[in-house]
């Protein structure tokens, strides 16, 4: 099994809940798609060429400041369980990790991780340079990615077209190759049934939304990943600025929806969030989807100050550690399909109990009702 403790913060600093707007935003990601001019793209390159690409990128990265101390993974040589762990931790995409079957593994897949930044090698594009930050932090994530891109671009010859810009495997990424996404928790808009209107409006102004695990993943626990749809025709800063402005608007709508709920449906809201907490605190078997939905309720309760004895960091960690590969890793051996929901419930109980312990017994009782 791989040792994820080698990674700075286990590669999970983005869960810290330390960044701006952490009560609404879990994390911010910015990635740049880059390809090498002298090599065929992923759909046309064979094993030896992909090995050459991996070697070239690793050699170039070794000389940079941003990746010189990076922890390296050869993803296609990892066990299924380890690939799942990296995927659940958001360090590699589903595309590179092939968490279902080794048959879909991309040959010579690589991963470099240093601090808040990482590079996936031989995914859909030769390089996917990305930064993941806690909270709503587009500027911080962008500056990290831009620095890495500049360092790597001096050592590697990227495919660049005078009119189209950076060339990518899929035409949807051509131009800047930039995709910025903000993982935001919107239970207020879901409960007030405004979410569909908002999501529809966002798609009309060049934004798209996805689930917790990016492209093709489902929306669970009211967590929406909002990102830019187009990559060409606007500069990097224009794209980031546009996304940032719209996310701020969505956050304002969410805050307003929460205040309306708190004002007009206090008892129902309090019941809902404490019910979610109660189930998580005492249930003996939990499915992943149920866990995500209950965590959403508790997160809302914590955000509104209704539930005092849980921290956002613990809730963020539960998003990752209640997933199958992490439960298996914690248990030390493979779990059967029947064992997973039982282990998940046990883990959630343990974390919530520790939170009460950490935050003192005074926080144990629900706040006095009016």
């Amino acid at each position, binding site marked *: 099994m791989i040792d994820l403790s080698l990674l700075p913060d286990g590669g999970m600093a983005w869960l810290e809940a330390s960044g701006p707007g952490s009560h609404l935003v879990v994390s911010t990601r910015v990635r740049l798609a880059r390809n090498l001019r002298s090599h*065929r793209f992923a*759909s046309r390159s064979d094993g030896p060429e992909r090995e050459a690409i991996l070697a070239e990128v690793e050699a170039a990265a070794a000389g940079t400041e941003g990746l010189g101390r990076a922890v390296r993974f050869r993803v296609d040589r990892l066990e299924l369980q380890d690939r799942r762990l990296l995927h659940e931790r958001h360090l590699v995409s589903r595309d590179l990790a092939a968490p279902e079957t080794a048959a879909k593994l991309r040959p010579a897949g690589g991963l470099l991780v240093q601090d808040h930044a990482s590079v996936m090698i031989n995914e859909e594009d030769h390089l996917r340079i990305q930064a993941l930050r806690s909270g709503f932090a587009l500027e911080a994530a962008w500056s990290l990615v831009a620095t890495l891109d500049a360092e790597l671009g001096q050592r590697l010859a990227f495919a660049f077209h005078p009119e189209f810009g950076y060339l990518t495997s899929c035409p949807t990424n051509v131009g800047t190759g930039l995709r910025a996404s903000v993982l935001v928790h919107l239970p207020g808009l879901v409960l007030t049934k405004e979410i569909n209107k908002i999501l529809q409006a966002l798609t009309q102004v060049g934004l798209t939304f996805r689930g917790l695990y990016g492209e093709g993943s489902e929306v669970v626990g009211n967590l929406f990943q909002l990102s830019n749809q187009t990559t060409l025709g606007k500069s990097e800063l224009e794209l980031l600025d546009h996304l940032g402005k719209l996310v701020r608007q969505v956050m304002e709508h969410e805050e307003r929806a929460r205040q309306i709920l708190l004002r007009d449906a206090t008892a129902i809201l309090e019941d809902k969030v404490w019910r979610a907490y109660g189930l998580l605190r005492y249930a003996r078997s939990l499915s992943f989807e149920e866990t995500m939905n209950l965590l959403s309720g508790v997160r809302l309760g914590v955000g509104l100050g209704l539930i005092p004895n849980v921290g956002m960091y613990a809730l963020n960690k539960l998003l990752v550690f209640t997933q199958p590969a992490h439960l298996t890793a914690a248990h030390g051996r493979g779990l059967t399909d029947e064992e997973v929901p039982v282990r998940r419930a046990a883990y959630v109980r343990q974390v919530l109990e520790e939170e009460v312990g950490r935050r003192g017994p005074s926080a144990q009782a629900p706040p006095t009702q009016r």
Partner: protein
Amino acid sequence: MKCSHCGEREGVVSLTQVKEGEVHTASLCAQCAAEKGIETGFAMADTPLGGFLAKLGESADPDAPLLAALEVRCPGCNATLRDFRETGRVGCSECYQAFDAPLRELLRRLHGSTHHTGMQYQRGEAPAPRVEPGRTDLELKEQLRRAVESEQFELAAELRDRLRDRE
């Protein structure tokens, strides 16, 4: 992702519903979506990439010039336009020259533009905003306005100097 209704065909429509205050998303294939009477306004066939790919070489006439164009090979990676239609992925950087016309059209549909206005790249130099030569005064002024708006002051200064030189 497989269709969550039939479990057989590939899901092409992502369906997000809000039921009893909870969000459910499902991936449906075109057939199941149609059976459920779901308006597939954003379905695969209607997305720019999906629709474009489906239409490439649609004509049944084997002598049609479009079909002949499908067999032209990229000198860089030997891929044809037909390969692109099947995978939706470009084979190498030279493909963008070899299939310039259809890819240009696709980029225009996907992004509403074919003109990259972001960082310029030259190996050995850090990527930097660059003013392109041969632009009209009007385009330069527009670029200057955008540069100021997005607080790209270095670029704005460069543009201002260029405009001044032209006067």
